[in-house]
């Protein structure tokens, strides 16, 4: 009798202790080794970088309301788009899903207490904020005007801006990616709970594994390339300088050897998130698990042999161009496999339209447009017409914003109750998702048309006949900006006032939903034993 009473009293006491309230104070966060807290440290810092990069984008779009440019000198405009690109690519998109959701979820999803190397994990975050500090410092003290691609000889010889400081920032942040990649690979290999076989892993884990491979294989190359560029700029000893027999094209080859795979660093985690969302909100097993899993790996592999499609018009041999063109078309196959499998999963599912699902459905449509327009650019002949125009800008924003950011937002909304233990207002979340979808399309669809008509990217002014489409795009950007601010407000509200979520508010499958929300510091009271496949939803639900 007395033991029963003790148990009753113990249960609520246990669940009130979690990773958020187990210790307090700034030091307990800055020195934490808990993967969940480190994920939140990343969440805070990349959100800051997202709004800095977003601010640059909004200012650019305001400037482009008038053909002669409404706000800035052309030099300032150059710095705006460079800052936007560098911050969004290296300090937001690359770490976004892996470092926040990945850090938070990988140990939870595979049934582990933490990542394999918690101290290395914290060090990654410190490297990231050090790199980000360099980038922000350079931005505040005058900026950089090379574009995010740092092409020499402009970046090495002629630019009068803070190239070295920014390159150093990217270099340092690169090591953060490398260490995160090493940590995730080892964690996924060695830390899985008993019974969690490779083919029972959630597809998010497969996507993170493929992403980590790219982190590990690609990032060192951009690091050494930026090192060589920095040396050339500081010491005037040209590795890429034609005057001493160097070749600027070599920089482009090395740069894109990383930066093309980096595109998949940004989209693969998003695809992983979408697999989780689609299954959870259609209450169905994923269609073709193995195909979706292996398509992640094949995207990672193919990503390393297509970099030359960024160089079709920069003096690369036409035969190399042909090969790269064919190889680039190959990427479409695993990407399409994913889209078809998600669609097939929806078929006859019992679909519900909570906010995360709205983002997931938005992702499928927008990523499809972004992916298909990529094929226009992979074809040599059309690329000659479209290269360097707004068509390219629209294409990669459909993939990066319509794809990666949509998935990131969907993932945040899906796992927010797990992260904070609180629910956010669902109606506001759906409204925000709709606003983001509308704002996004209004911003970027006109840019396809502008590019096709021949408006070049990276110019501060443009011919008057393009004004209507540019004004549409700028109007869309302001709607999109509002769409991103609304979640910021209700997420912060929910942390204090949101109703408690309970362990599994969505009724979703997966180990992360079997533990309390927010989880304990060590995630599970006892390490779970896995006996079923991923997404093992009751089959009658599949037939409605």
């Amino acid at each position, binding site marked *: 009798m007395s033991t029963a009473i003790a148990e009753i009293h113990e249960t609520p006491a246990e669940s009130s202790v979690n990773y958020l309230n187990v210790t307090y104070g700034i030091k307990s966060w800055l020195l934490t080794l808990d993967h969940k807290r480190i994920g939140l440290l990343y969440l805070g810092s990349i959100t800051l970088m997202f709004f800095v990069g977003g601010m640059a984008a909004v200012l650019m779009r305001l400037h482009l309301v008038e053909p002669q440019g409404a706000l800035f000198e052309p030099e300032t405009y150059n710095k705006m788009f460079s800052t936007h690109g560098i911050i969004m690519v290296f300090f937001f998109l690359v770490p976004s899903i892996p470092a926040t959701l990945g850090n938070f979820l990988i*140990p939870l999803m595979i049934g*582990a*207490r*933490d*990542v*394999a*190397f*918690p101290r*290395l994990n914290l060090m990654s975050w410190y490297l990231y904020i050090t790199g980000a500090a360099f980038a922000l410092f350079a931005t505040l003290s005058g900026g950089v005007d090379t574009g995010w691609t740092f092409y020499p000889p402009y970046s090495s010889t002629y630019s009068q801006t803070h190239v070295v400081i920014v390159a150093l920032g990217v270099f340092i942040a690169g090591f953060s990616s*490398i260490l995160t*990649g*090493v*940590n995730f*690979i*080892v964690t996924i*290999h*060695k*830390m899985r709970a008993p019974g969690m076989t490779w083919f029972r892993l959630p597809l998010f884990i497969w996507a993170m594994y493929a992403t980590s491979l790219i982190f*590990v*294989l*690609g*990032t*060192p*190359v951009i*690091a*050494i*390339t930026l*090192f*060589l560029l920095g*040396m050339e700029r*500081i*010491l*005037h*000893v*040209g*590795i890429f300088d034609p*005057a*001493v*027999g*160097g*070749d600027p094209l*070599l920089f482009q080859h*090395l740069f894109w*050897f990383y930066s093309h795979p980096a595109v998949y660093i940004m989209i693969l985690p998003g695809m992983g998130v979408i697999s989780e969302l689609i299954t959870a909100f259609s209450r169905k097993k994923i269609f073709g698990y193995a195909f979706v899993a292996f398509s992640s790996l094949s995207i990672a592999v193919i990503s390393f042999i297509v970099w030359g499609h960024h160089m079709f018009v920069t003096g690369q041999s036409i035969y190399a161009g042909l090969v790269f063109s064919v190889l680039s078309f190959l990427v479409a196959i695993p990407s399409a496999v994913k889209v078809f499998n998600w669609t097939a999963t929806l078929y006859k599912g019992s679909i519900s339209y909570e906010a995360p699902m709205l983002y997931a459905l938005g992702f499928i449509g927008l990523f499809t447009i972004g992916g298909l327009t990529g094929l226009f650019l992979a074809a040599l002949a059309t690329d000659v017409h479209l290269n360097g125009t707004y068509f390219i800008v629209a294409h990669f924003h459909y993939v990066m914003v319509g794809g990666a950011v949509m998935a990131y937002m969907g993932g945040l909304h899906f796992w927010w109750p797990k992260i904070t233990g609180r629910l956010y207002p669902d109606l506001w979340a759906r409204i925000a998702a709709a606003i983001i979808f509308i704002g996004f399309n209004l911003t970027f669809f006109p840019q396809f048309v502008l590019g096709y008509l021949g408006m070049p990217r990276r110019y501060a002014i443009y011919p008057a006949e393009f004004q209507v489409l540019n004004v549409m795009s700028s109007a869309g950007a302001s709607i999109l900006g509002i769409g991103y601010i609304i979640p910021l407000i209700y997420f912060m509200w929910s942390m204090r006032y949101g109703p408690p979520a309970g362990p599994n508010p969505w009724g979703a499958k997966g180990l992360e939903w079997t533990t309390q929300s927010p989880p304990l510091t*060590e995630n599970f009271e006892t*390490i779970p034993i896995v006996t079923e496949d991923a997404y093992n939803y009751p089959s009658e639900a599949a037939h409605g």
Partner: protein
Amino acid sequence: MAELATHGAHPQGFAHQFEDIEQQRDAGRLGMWVFLVTEILFFGGMFTSYTIYRALHLESFIQGSHQLEVKFGATNTAVLIFSSLTMALAIRAAQTGKKKGQIIFWLVLTMLLGALFVGLKLRFEWYRDYVDGIIPGVHWFYNGPHAPGVKMFMCFYFFMTGLHAIHMIVGLGILAVLVSMTARNKFSSEYYSPLEISGLYWHFVDIVWIFLFPLLYLIGGRY
């Protein structure tokens, strides 16, 4: 602290996130191997650039290579290979449960050899290069044949050996930590993972030099 209490039965050095010491050892080993893969790609960008430019400017690279002293490069190669042996012997001593004095002996010898490598490089190579004015961007007065290409070669020489030397210095720091850990009885024949994975790193840095030596010193038929 609670987790330390629950896993109190485990040997020293055991981290709470693992199930057992075996899993921890496997994770550490795999982690170091994956890290070394990133290192290969890090140096790989440089080796690729070297290969392309050497193919484009072979004569200049041979001329540049002749600026280097083979005898110092060869001596340092021998020093490094010997240091790999002493590192392996340190791990072996830990593995077979030898006294800590023996482990420390081999570790310190490894450190001395590593320091000898860096010392020789600084005193007899880079310092002389400075005096001779063949350091591009710092002290450059070379006016022999193929001047631009030789400058390019010397850039590669300093970047590659410089990065390698930085890795050596990091390795010396790691060895110093290992000596102190050994002195504080952190290792036993059950638990010596830090020694083992540091050894992997040390051997990797040696292997990089094994590639650097012929590529930089021995091109152009001068033996």
